[in-house]
């Protein structure tokens, strides 16, 4: 509750140093972002303290936190998180790099785009979960299945953003390249790829987010380890504290990854102002 009790930062103008203004604004945004989670935590505490929901169904926050500490201390949590991280890293690396190549090819070549895009769009429409039953028959339920499902989830946003980024290089810049007699390779290296870096980075960001959610989906259905498995297992054993710990970890890790990439993205976009 401390978050919403924080004194409101003074307006930027009142600060002795203008340099402090962004920090103050950041602090305020942080406090605002924590307001709703704090409210939910409050309702949760009240709900379990006054037994509005049976404790077996909704364990009190303190109990869940204790469980989190125990799982952390025993190494169990890190083990599951580590397995999940390796799967996401593998699937994301595979899907994002294939997506980058396919996106570049589709962005550069009208013909490749004409051949590939209709099928690609149709495949992208089938949700990741929908692919699991079919792929299970081909790949079994081992690591290959998880990697392929995650890679597929990561591939789609990467292809879309990369091809759009390459197509989106302004014609006015292409004319500059033409005036200086750039070869195809020079156009690619000096103009198209640098201009497409920000949209490609946006693709990486969405790609990683999609990979992370796909991981949970595939671990829910076919796994004996990992954070998604922890969730299913907690439910099956009716260890709801374990389940909640897994949910919170999944959410926090996903949020942190997106936030870090969003910062990188904002830096890359900065030159776009006035472009």
């Amino acid at each position, binding site marked *: 509750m401390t978050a919403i009790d924080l004194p409101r930062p003074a307006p930027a103008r009142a600060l002795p140093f203008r340099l402090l203004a962004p920090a103050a604004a950041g602090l305020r945004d942080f406090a605002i972002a924590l307001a709703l989670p704090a409210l939910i935590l409050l309702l949760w505490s009240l709900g379990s303290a006054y037994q509005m929901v049976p404790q077996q169904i909704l364990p009190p926050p303190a109990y869940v936190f204790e469980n989190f500490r125990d799982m952390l201390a025993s190494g169990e949590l890190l083990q599951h998180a580590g397995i999940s991280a390796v799967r996401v890293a593998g699937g994301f690396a595979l899907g994002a790099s294939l997506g980058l190549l396919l996106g570049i090819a589709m962005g550069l070549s009208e013909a490749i785009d004409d051949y590939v895009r209709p099928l690609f769009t149709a495949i992208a429409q089938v949700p990741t979960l929908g692919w699991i039953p079919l792929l299970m028959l081909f790949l079994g339920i081992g690591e290959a299945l998880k990697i392929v499902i995650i890679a597929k989830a990561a591939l789609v946003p990467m292809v879309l953003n990369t091809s759009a980024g390459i197509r989106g290089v302004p014609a*006015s*810049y292409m*004319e*500059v390249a*033409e*005036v*200086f*007699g*750039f070869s195809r390779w*020079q156009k690619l290296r*000096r*103009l198209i790829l*640098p*201009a497409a*870096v920000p949209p490609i980075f946006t693709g990486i960001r969405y790609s990683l987010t999609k990979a992370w959610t796909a991981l949970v989906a595939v671990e829910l259905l076919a796994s004996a380890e990992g954070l998604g498995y922890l969730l299913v297992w907690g439910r099956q054993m009716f260890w709801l504290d374990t389940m909640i710990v897994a949910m919170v970890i999944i959410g926090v890790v996903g949020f942190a990854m997106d936030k870090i990439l969003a910062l990188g993205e904002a830096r890359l976009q*900065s*030159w*776009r*102002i*006035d*472009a």
Partner: protein
Amino acid sequence: MASGQIDIRGVSKTFQVDGRPLVALERVDLDISAGAFITIVGASGCGKSTLLRMIAGLERNHRGEIRHGGQVIAGPSLERGLVFQEPRLFPWLTVAQNVALGLENAKVSGETRRRLVAEHLALVGLTGFAQAYPRQLSGGMAQRAAIARALVNRPGILLLDEPFGALDAMTRAHLQGELQRIWAHEGITAVLVTHDVDEAVLLGDQVVVMAPRPGRIAEIFPIDAPRPRDRKDEDLIRLRNAVLEALDAIKDEAPRSAVPH
């Protein structure tokens, strides 16, 4: 130094607009002698920018012939520099790197390359901004950088497509003076397209007045005033009025059929 002579012979250009032919230029003849400063002025739609882009080699598929130093123009060439209305600097490159883009296909050593970039940044007064990024420049400074980029190959011809059209009046007046200085210093041929009659008269040895629908040359005014010129000079003001009258006469004229025979 590359040649600065341009000969335009019987050039016509038709665009397809919504499936219908639109005559952008009809039988244009113009000789531009080396070292001259030609300004082309006219209402929008008179084909002045199209003509400039043809000289640059960006518009192909036209009838008639455009020669540069006797050679038929078939595409862009490092012998002709082009400045667009917008600076079109690549935002991820520094000012010096943007200027160096012009030398990408020039057969010069790395040492010469650096020297040429530095010289041309000095020429446009941007020496202190070599390492700046385009977003850090004002509109006038960005356009100076674009001029440096167009000149860095030491082309025989500098083509300018309404280069100061987007700038405020003070900056525009200042850059017009700078352009006169650069043109005189480089001994280059300059062709500048504008809709600003004052600018056309101030800068041009000849002012080519174009008429729209179909685009054609209506009249050519020689401007003999000595340089450097002062925009308050009475001869220039008289000439400006004459050009304005010519443009008014074109505006009142009934539009001819735009459909080719």
